[in-house]
């Protein structure tokens, strides 16, 4: 079906690049100009700072968890402290880091530019959603300061409503507010994609990054409110004992789980889809080749968004749901895995006949593909009913979701961050050391979580503060891996900050990528474009790019 042609793309000479005098960073001065900004790029940066902060907090919790699990005995912390550690680790990492990670930073920054708009549709609401994130984050921090919460990130009733005297309501309120932050981000993205595309930017000319965000945003808008009502009911149950989830009063505690997972399963796709978007951009750019089967990749995102709403009960297979409905949900779980598989293979074939280079973003992207495949395929273990009986609530699940979330999404996030760093800051990150950090985190990651699959099959339960001695060897490996991983994640935090001042000047299009964002100056102007762009080429059109560069060269030379 394809018309093939060949393209050669040479990286531009960056020695001649200069930082533009006027850009969104220096357009206005003073801290207030940041706190009151309506510029999507600045809000993206605000988000970046916020989530990095929370990632470090969540990471410290992770470190403490792993340290406690170094030995089988409960020696480092008391059991209730341990329970608070993993609860806060989960809440912070999911709601404060991973859900906003790509959409609120990179998405915020790039989506308007990618579709040729000057801003998101509702800049003020965009700012509001950042403030909501900060307020929700403050509630979470307050929870920590006041003494923590130990429900697990899943807030399971009736434990959370009747049997704990920690700060469940404070934490719940935090999650509630964060939910609205995420709703507003999603809403903004959907409206922007529908309403603000530049002339010529048809749906099928949009970068896959935008498609992925569009799909994720649909889930944010439709799923998150159900979490909000579930959390509200938990809070009411705790404070007023209304009995909707209380078996003693006739309520059904499983109803809570239905509502919770109705959000939280789609949430895992909210987390991964934007990462998929990043990977499409990165793989294409560094193989200098259009994404194989653009439409399939675009529609598979949408398919995930739709089917993602139909599988939540797979988190409840042994919880006392009807066996027959478990059957339905297991089947649907298998179906929803297919679009992910499609994407993996499409990316693989994007490499074919490309002209591939291995800059840091590409290394992260390749790591993503491998790790997500492992994570995703172990999801099939869990979706397979009989297997889930043995594996559920063990470290197998912990390994599964860290593979998809850390090995998948976090790697994708880092890929994206490095990829667009020159665009966001105007400067390059240091290539050699960042490659090293990618390798270190890849090794550290596998060392941390691969043993956990074995532990899980051995039956080691999750959320255990002490464990039988025969599990120790694997746990020691895992803790060792976590240390390596910590180093691998700490390095970017240092060298990226360093590069703000000392990095090489990047120039407009250091990767010779085709996206609209690369055709403007870096860092961009506050208005993004000098004049409204008109798009007359497909996404990932390297011929167009080659043609354009040629012309530039001729005009300059």
């Amino acid at each position: 079906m394809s018309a093939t042609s060949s393209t050669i793309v040479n990286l531009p000479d960056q020695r001649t690049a200069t930082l533009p005098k006027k850009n969104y960073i220096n357009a206005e001065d003073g801290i207030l100009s940041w706190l009151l900004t309506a510029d999507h790029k600045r809000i993206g940066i605000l988000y970046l700072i916020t989530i990095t902060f929370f990632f470090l907090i969540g990471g410290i919790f992770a470190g403490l968890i792993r340290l406690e699990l170094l030995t089988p005995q409960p020696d480092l912390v008391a059991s209730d402290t341990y329970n608070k550690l993993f609860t806060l680790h989960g809440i912070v990492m999911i709601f404060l880091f991973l859900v906003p990670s790509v959409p609120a930073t990179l998405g915020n920054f790039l989506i308007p530019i990618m579709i040729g708009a000057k801003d998101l549709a509702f800049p003020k609401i965009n700012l509001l959603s950042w403030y909501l994130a900060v307020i929700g984050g403050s509630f979470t921090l307050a929870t920590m300061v006041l003494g923590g919460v130990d429900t697990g990130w899943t807030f399971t009733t009736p434990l959370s409503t009747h049997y704990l005297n920690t700060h469940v309501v404070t934490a719940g309120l935090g999650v509630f507010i964060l939910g609205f932050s995420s709703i507003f981000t999603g809403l903004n993205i959907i409206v922007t994609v529908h309403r603000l595309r530049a002339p010529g930017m048809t749906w099928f000319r949009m970068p896959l990054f935008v498609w992925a965000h569009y799909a994720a945003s649909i889930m944010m808008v439709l799923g998150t409110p159900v979490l909000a009502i579930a959390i509200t009911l938990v809070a009411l149950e705790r404070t007023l004992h209304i009995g909707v989830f209380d078996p003693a009063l006739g309520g059904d505690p499983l109803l809570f789980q239905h509502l919770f997972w109705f959000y939280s399963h789609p949430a895992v796709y909210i987390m991964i889809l934007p990462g998929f978007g990043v990977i499409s951009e990165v793989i294409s750019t560094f193989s200098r080749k259009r994404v194989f089967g653009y439409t399939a990749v675009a529609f598979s995102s949408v398919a995930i968004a739709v089917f993602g709403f139909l599988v939540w009960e797979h988190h409840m297979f042994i919880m006392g749901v009807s066996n027959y409905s478990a059957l339905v949900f297991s089947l649907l779980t298998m179906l929803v895995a297919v679009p992910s598989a499609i994407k993996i293979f499409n990316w693989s074939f994007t490499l074919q006949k490309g002209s591939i280079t291995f800059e840091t973003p590409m290394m992260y992207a390749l790591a993503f593909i491998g790790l997500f495949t492992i994570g995703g395929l172990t999801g099939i273990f869990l979706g397979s009913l009989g297997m889930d009986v043995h594996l559920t609530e063990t470290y197998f699940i912990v390994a599964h979701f860290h593979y998809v979330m850390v090995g998948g999404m976090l790697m994708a996030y880092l890929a994206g961050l490095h990829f667009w760093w020159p665009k966001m800051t105007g400067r390059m990150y240091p290539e050699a050391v960042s490659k090293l950090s990618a390798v270190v985190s890849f090794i550290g990651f596998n060392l941390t979580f691969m043993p956990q699959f074995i532990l899980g099959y051995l039956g080691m339960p999750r959320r255990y503060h002490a464990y039988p001695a025969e599990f120790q060897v694997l746990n020691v490996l895992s803790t060792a891996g976590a240390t390596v991983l910590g180093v691998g994640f700490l390095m970017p935090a240092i060298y990226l900050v360093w590069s703000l001042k000392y990095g090489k000047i990047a120039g407009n299009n250091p990767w010779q990528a085709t996206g609209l964002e690369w055709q403007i100056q870096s860092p961009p102007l506050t208005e993004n474009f000098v004049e409204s762009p008109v798009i007359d080429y497909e996404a990932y059109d390297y011929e167009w790019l080659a043609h354009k560069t040629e012309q530039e060269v001729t005009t300059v030379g």
Partner: protein
Amino acid sequence: MSSQYHDPANVNNPEHAEHHIVGPGTYIAIYVTLLVFTGITVGAAFIDLGVLNPIIAVGIACIKATIVILFFMHVIYQSKLIKMTVGAGFFTFLILLTMTLTDYISRAWGRW
């Protein structure tokens, strides 16, 4: 070739609909209809119809809601996009309903 896509007035856009001002006449008609339906639904509650009672009550509520959405909320004059959005919302709600019910309905099978 670029100008063919540039359509600032949105005339060719399927997501666009001509703006339509709804006049007070329509509103009054709708208002009366709504009150009438309220009367009917209250009246129906006083007649014992067995299983039909809840069906009628919810049915009338759906009719009323549809009228409000279509006219008070102007959806009937809006673009396809808005119509689909509204539909999607209720559709997702139905998914929540039916898929959760698969559990509750069949949980009792073989038990009580």
